[in-house]
């Protein structure tokens, strides 16, 4: 079974193939640019697929720190062996970084929040969906207390939504359900 090393190449190929196919249905002048762009793009996608398959499955892993890589880079540039002191960050400073597996799991959670937020905007509107999104995200993802999450949410919505609506006179989407409900009232 062929293991797909880089699914984006296949995705791009599929997108260009569909767009080029659809372009053939347009009048001559209209299909010109999509074909000028799409045809070479398809060729490049095929070339990239070949490169992906020819690429070494796993290259030697570079375990050097960023500072060691910087030493090598500047040494090559100046022609003299460089050694830098800044090998570690300041004592007393802690940088929080998640592991790759934890990060991947969190990505799915964040996507779920984003999709729910956009759906919330469409159904309930910005004025209801945004405070709810901020409140739940801050409470469960940023691990703020309920009080702090509510406070940050109120301040954020006041500044972003209030500021834009009153300051820049922007009209934000009020939501299909909310508009319907307000119509009945």
């Amino acid at each position, binding site marked *: 079974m062929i293991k797909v090393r880089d699914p984006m190449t296949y995705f791009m190929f599929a997108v260009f193939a569909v767009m080029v196919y659809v372009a053939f249905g347009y009048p001559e002048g209209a299909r010109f640019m999509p074909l000028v762009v799409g045809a070479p793009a398809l060729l*490049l996608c095929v070339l*990239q697929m070949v490169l992906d398959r020819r690429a070494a499955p796993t290259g030697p892993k570079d375990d050097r720190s960023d500072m060691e890589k910087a030493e090598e880079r500047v040494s090559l540039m100046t*022609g003299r062996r460089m050694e830098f002191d800044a090998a570690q960050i300041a004592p007393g400073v802690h940088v929080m970084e998640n592991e790759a597996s934890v990060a991947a799991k969190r990505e799915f959670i*964040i996507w779920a929040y984003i999709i729910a937020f956009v759906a919330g905007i*469409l159904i309930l509107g910005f004025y209801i969906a945004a405070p709810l999104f901020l409140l739940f995200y801050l409470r469960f993802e940023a691990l703020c207390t309920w009080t702090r999450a509510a406070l940050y949410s109120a301040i954020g919505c006041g500044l972003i939504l209030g500021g834009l609506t009153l300051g820049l006179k922007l009209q934000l*989407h009020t939501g299909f359900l909310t508009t319907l409900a307000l119509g009945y009232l």
Partner: protein
Amino acid sequence: MMDAMGAGLWALIGSAQTMGLMLVAVFIGLVVGATPGIGGRLSIALAIPFVFGMDMTQGAVFLLTMHAVNGTSGQISSIMFGVPGDGDDAATTIDGYPMAKKGEAGRALGASITASGVGGIIGAGVFAVMIPVLEPVVLAFSPAEFFLLAILGITFIAFLAGKGQIFKGIIVGLFGMMLATVGMDPQTGSPRYAGDYLFLWDGLSVVTCVLAVFAVPEMIALASRGGSISAVSAQTASFSYKQLFQGVLEVPRHWGLVLRTSMIGALIGMIPGLGGSAAAWMCYGHAVQTSKTPERFGHGAVEGVIAPETASNAKEGGSLLPTLFFGIPGSSGMAVLMGAFLILGIQPGPAMITKHLDLVWTLIWALVLGNLIAVSFLLFITRWVALLTFVNGAVLVPFILVLVTVGAYANEGQWENLIILLGISVIGWGLMRWDWPRAPFVIGLVLGKVAEESLHKALGLWGMGFFTRPLSLVLIAMIVATIGYAIYTNARGKNVMPAGAGS
């Protein structure tokens, strides 16, 4: 020329509103620069929806100033805590942090902030000097060359995206160009890829696409990866103002180095795609090579802080030149900025010299004044700005996502853009996840319509013979040479540029 120079300055300082906007931009730029997780590119993308509908000059001054002063506050965490904010700041860490360890954090900060400001001003000066030199070249360009320049711009950015990335970069650029064809065809008036959806007949919203490709994936990465400074001891963050002003004096003391690295930075900025990271590293190397005591570098040499900072800020002036006159962004940040300029109605190309030279000068003055204000401001508030580096990224994410959705909706007032935002965000996330460069997408998208118009005009004027025009041949040779060199270096296993230089 002198008239335009004066008119440009007056357009800036003669309007209280424009000056007010510039001050706001300086403040936002400094705050954003010091805050972890929000780069200059992202902040421009977030600001685009809110300058939509603004006067062309005011909008451009606001965005450019914000972008230009961004790096000035970015080095604070590199020097004080040894945690570089982005690629530009990594070179500053090498000597900045050892200085802080020796109890000279204030001196390093004073030198780096001043060097950054001086670099920005000299970069703007280099840009100004180049205008009369490039004027005849820009005016010689016809629609044929502008079509080829769009392709060259994508090729350059793709080339500099890193080892083995050139085809990926070009594919992404062409994908941007393909999406630019969505909507009503200007030649036949028939809708393309729009079906019966009327909101697509005007084409995809550039603002929505830029936010989707840059902002949403960056926020997902920030939220999932973490990486913000979560705690710091009070002792680590302390420094004296006396030291800070000693650092300021280091810049005139090393005026020769400042001048040279600023010039190098500005010139590197003019080469599309190289960006601040390359400028900073090259100038760091230059400082080591020209020093009489190179053994001090890496252990707290103040020249090692000055050189990368002047270079990375001077490149902003340089990279404005290909962006404004040729429509080829000098860096990924400039690509987003160019997208914003197009939205404001600023069309890069010969018109910038024939019609909008005063606007060009206003932007040069904005770079000069913005840097002056930023440096004076930052020297006094560094201690408080430094506190921003402890902001937890996870807390910022939802607020930025709210801004992103508001921005995507507000620029056209259509809810359908939220669906587009979601769809293209998935593609943007895919590009980031599988290490594909994203900057060429913006260039392709913003230049797509211009390229199509230019291609039709060129074909109408010269037929297929437009490829044989001398300037066209030069550009074609440059495109072929760029791709050929990338293939050659890839086959030899050499890395063309540090990964991510053009991403």
